């Protein structure tokens, strides 16, 4: 069993409620932070821990915190990004649903470190029942003196509010989230100014992912240096991976980032292998926007090294032969899956979720969906593949926010690694409507199931 820092108590009966959570050692980090530490020393511990943002971008959290402006007399805010919407990602949902107090505990400590008194959890609108769970937990925490005025007699005031979104992937982007929190359309803002200077209501704001903020609890409890000893290189601590697709055991797993991709997919402790004894064809290892990899490049890097479940190893080889850890949304495709169709559903997703502000993204995502639709339905031409490549290239890097890149990458990677499957669709318009390209040479070379 690997090390668990976040989900170690997830199976304790009643852990969702305050009594059990506290009995199991909950809220110790708040006591330690408020009584024995000060905001600066907490930020120092987080820097030492090497914690990187768990929402997908992987930016060092301690550094992000140190950017917050502290103008005299202007309130600062912490906003928890619970707008989890990246296809394949459902880890924050799990954490909030089963361990709501862990998130609150992390939020209180983080709010103290940032000098924020009013903290918001921006949760995606569809997680309606989790909103109720969080509000219940907030009431319990308040009743037990962990929220409100003068917490633990230290004079520190902290209030946490849940703000429900209403169905918009783009609000996971921090400036769109801030716009949405202000009651507007989720159109990302042009940076600078960065939220740390002018965020919600023009006040200094830090936006962090749910898992990132929950990880503050073990960091404070064990100390940043101890936390940094777990993992490897710049991938410190543990990471939640939500695994889905054609595997035996879909679900949320906490890993310590030293295990190999092969172990993660095939061991019974994690995904338990490919469903139905089929063969692995491809995998999107970090949420739908990261590059898809064929089995042969997934388990080993292009230079033949074992690939591990961490930031550095998954991105080994760059986009040419690697991918990203991203949000930890691990999507596994077996031999029966069609890459063209999978790419089409993702292109449709990004077209649907584009806010429409920047023309490369607004127009480009629509074009990509239409062309993929055409190829999938047997009306494509070889020139369409080049057109797709051209469009994605013109979106990437040319938009205000990263949604443009997120829409371009899956299409680019699908063509890069599976061009012959696209060609097969085009050259076999009738056959491709009833049968599948299958594995061909994509088969995982080291794993032939018995």
């Amino acid at each position, binding site marked *: 069993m690997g090390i668990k820092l976040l989900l170690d108590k997830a199976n304790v009966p009643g852990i969702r409620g305050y009594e059990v959570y506290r009995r199991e050692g909950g809220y110790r980090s708040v006591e330690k932070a408020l009584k024995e530490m000060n905001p600066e020393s907490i930020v120092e511990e987080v820097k030492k821990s090497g914690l990187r943002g768990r929402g997908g971008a992987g930016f060092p959290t301690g550094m992000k915190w140190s950017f917050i402006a502290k103008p005299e007399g202007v309130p600062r805010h912490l906003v928890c990004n619970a707008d989890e919407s990246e296809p394949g*990602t*459902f880890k924050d949902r799990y954490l909030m649903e089963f361990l709501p107090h862990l998130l609150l505990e992390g939020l209180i400590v983080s709010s103290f470190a940032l000098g924020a008194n009013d903290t918001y959890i921006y949760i995606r609108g569809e997680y309606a029942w989790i909103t109720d769970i969080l509000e219940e937990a907030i009431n319990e925490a308040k009743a037990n003196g962990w929220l409100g005025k003068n917490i633990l007699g230290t004079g520190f005031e902290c209030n946490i509010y849940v703000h429900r979104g209403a*169905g918009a992937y783009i609000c996971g982007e921090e400036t769109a989230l801030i716009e949405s929190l202000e009651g507007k359309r*989720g159109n990302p803002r042009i940076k600078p100014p960065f939220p740390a200077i002018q965020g919600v209501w023009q006040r200094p704001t830090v936006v962090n992912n749910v898992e990132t903020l929950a990880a503050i609890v073990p960091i404070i409890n064990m100390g940043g240096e101890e936390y940094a000893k777990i993992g490897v290189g710049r991938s410190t601590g543990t990471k939640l991976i939500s695994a889905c697709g054609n595997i035996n055991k879909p679900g949320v797993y906490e890993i310590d980032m030293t295990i190999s991709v092969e172990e993660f997919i095939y061991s019974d402790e994690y995904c338990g292998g490919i469903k139905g004894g089929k063969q692995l064809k491809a995998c999107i290892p970090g949420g739908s926007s990261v590059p898809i990899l064929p089995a042969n490049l997934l388990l080993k890097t292009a230079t033949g090294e074992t690939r591990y479940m961490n930031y550095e190893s998954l991105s080994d080889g760059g986009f040419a032969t690697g991918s990203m850890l991203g949000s930890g949304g691990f999507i596994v495709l077996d031999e029966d899956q069609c890459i063209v169709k999978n790419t089409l559903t993702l292109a449709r997703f990004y077209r649907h979720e584009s*806010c429409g502000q920047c023309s490369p993204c607004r127009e480009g995502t629509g074009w990509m969906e239409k062309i993929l639709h055409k190829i999938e339905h047997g009306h494509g031409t070889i020139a369409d593949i080049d057109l797709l490549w051209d469009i994605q290239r013109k979106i990437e890097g040319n938009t205000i926010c990263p949604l443009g890149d997120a829409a371009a990458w899956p299409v680019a990677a699908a063509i890069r690694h599976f061009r012959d499957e696209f060609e097969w669709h085009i050259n076999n318009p009738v056959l491709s409507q009833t049968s599948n390209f299958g594995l061909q040479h994509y088969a995982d070379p080291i794993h032939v199931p018995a």
Partner: protein
Amino acid sequence: MTYTFNETQMTELNRLVAHYPEGKQKSALLPALHLAQDSFDGWLPTELMDYVASLLHIEPIEVYEVASFYSMFNLKPVGKFIFEVCQTGPCMISGSDDIIAYIQQQLAIKPGETTQDGVFTLKLVECLGACGYAPMMQVGKIFREHLTKEKVDSIIAEYRATVTK
């Protein structure tokens, strides 16, 4: 038609508005629209949006532009129960196409349509964050996961029973 919140709904609105700093009551717009949609017929007619605007002291256009941006707000009448079936990648590779086809067949409606008795609306949606429990759909506040044809049958029967009672 004019709309007015009852006392309970008004208390809830005030609780939501109190989450934000003074003068920033527009921030409560999304929560307020959820409340309005859930309190009446499951959708947002113009008059209802105007009412929300008046409660938050903002211009009606500020409400319209927001309501039309977010996919959870319905701008057309809907059935009593909305089957919001996910069709994105992870659900698709887990068989959502078959589930969508089966629901269409059982309810005799196409995506975006409502059954003649006004009970069910079928809506195709993008990733709801239940990829490990696919295929799935959202009905009201809850997720119905690991869908099979048999499960769809029993879910339809379950909601139908609440109406005929």
